[in-house]
């Protein structure tokens, strides 16, 4: 079971990232728990300069952009 966190205050990019991450997990058949982090202090605990951020198993893998399906699946594997 992977833990996936979406960091962001609910902006358009964060919703898009969440959708992309869910789709990537489903199509690769990977079970994952999704958590949305919207609290600013919790977000800045990770080293990022712009949202949305994607955290997989407590490691920040991308920030400030929306990665492609292929990239997300690479991180999830």
């Amino acid at each position, binding site marked *: 079971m992977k833990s996936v966190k979406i960091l*962001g*205050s609910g*902006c*358009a*990019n*964060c919703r898009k990232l969440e959708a*992309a991450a869910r789709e990537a997990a489903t199509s690769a058949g990977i079970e994952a728990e999704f958590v949305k982090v919207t609290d*600013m*202090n919790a*977000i*800045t605990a990770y*080293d*990022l*300069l*712009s*949202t*949305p951020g994607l955290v997989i198993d407590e490691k920040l893998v991308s920030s*400030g*952009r*929306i*990665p*492609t*399906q292929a990239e997300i699946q690479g991180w999830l594997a």
Partner: protein
Amino acid sequence: MDIFLRSMSGGAGNLAAYLAAHVLLCLLPAFFIAGAMAALIPKASITRWLGRNAPYRVSYPAAAAAGSLLAVCSCTIVPLFAGIHKKGAGLGPAITFLFFAPAGNILALAYTGSILGAEFAFARFALSLLFGIGIGLMMAVLFWRDDASHDAQTDALFAQQASIGAAPLGVLLSLVAVLIAGTLKLWPLTATVGTLTLPLPWAEVWQAALYQWVPFDAAKGEEGVSLQGSLLILLLVLIGLIAWKGLEDIVEGANRWTWVALGLAAATLLVAAMRLTPVPGGVELALTGRALAVAAALGAVLHHARRLEADAWRAWLWEAWRFVKQIFVLLVVGVFVVGIVRQWIQPQWIENLAGRNDMLANAAAVLFGVFMYFPTLVEVPVAHMFLDLGMHRGPLLAYLMADPELSLQSILMVSAIIGRRKTFTYVGLVALFSIVAGLAYGAWVDGMERVWIIGGLGSFAAVLVTTLGWLLGRRAMPARV
């Protein structure tokens, strides 16, 4: 019923006039530039100057640069603000960044310039820069104890090094060239190279119909919709519809609609740069120097964009499209509402309150800015309305300085990160500095001796710097504010 109709037609007329006249040559390239800044400038190329050990001579200019180059939307402003404050250079540069971002970013400058004039945009830029750094320094000095008690954090966030590549830089510069070629009102851009009369008999009828649908009163500063304007609105709507199909999933790759949307956007810019005038029996198409310059700049954009890597240009187009979705909708609604409201405000009210450049007028303008919340960029059409209604340009600038910097949203956000006491100090300082900015610019407009204004601002800055230098010297601390 009559009242309702009058309001609605005021709103629709305002919207049509804005879309036709102002939006295209400034906002369309500006959205692409904002997208390119968000996607193509590596944040580390600027943020590496914001680390914990950066001296203040470096960190304040870098914070201002970050505000104007990196922070086009709140998804960058908030995390970067929190990051600079907590893990980077400290409270002062964080405040400079926060203050300068809404006034110094490309969308705000382009839009202010095209609606209120280049001089006004420049004043907004220069005074925000000066005062952003001033307020940052004052906050840092007032609260230096809190800053000194940073807990042991790593410098990792701001230690990364990066620089912008040749292709992204080329794209950015040629986009800026499109913006400049499209908006600057200078010879040879305004010169006519050649004219061509197209035999379109319906053109005159159409123009007459447009003036009837969107009646306007030039004395009140209202604008009508021209034939060319109506063509541009049509093109805009088309781009909007097609971009929805072409750009929504651009991250996964381009499709045929992507190229149609981009082609239409380029065509729109070219049409806007030409001059279409209805003449008896047809339309006179004038090829201007502007059209040639825009075409050349667009060619340069294409040339550089082809050298971008696939995920770079996809990210660029996505960010540009996201800004359009996020800001354009608000702007359309805002302009519409401004058009309605304007029917109900008597010019005398504005003239009595803020028709002069004095302390009271500037204070009233700032107060209005603090308590009114307008979404991104809507402050500009609001300011335009006030200007038409007789507001003096000094208080107008004071309002424009205070409004975006002190929205309720930003006050809440700032107080969540730095606490209430510092936030209230910040709000107070912004109000004070905005009034000073309004007074100074108003005096400039009124034709006061330039020497006096520059001398006044200079001594204001000098007193500030001396006080700070003295305070900094007194505390036996590394000079990191």
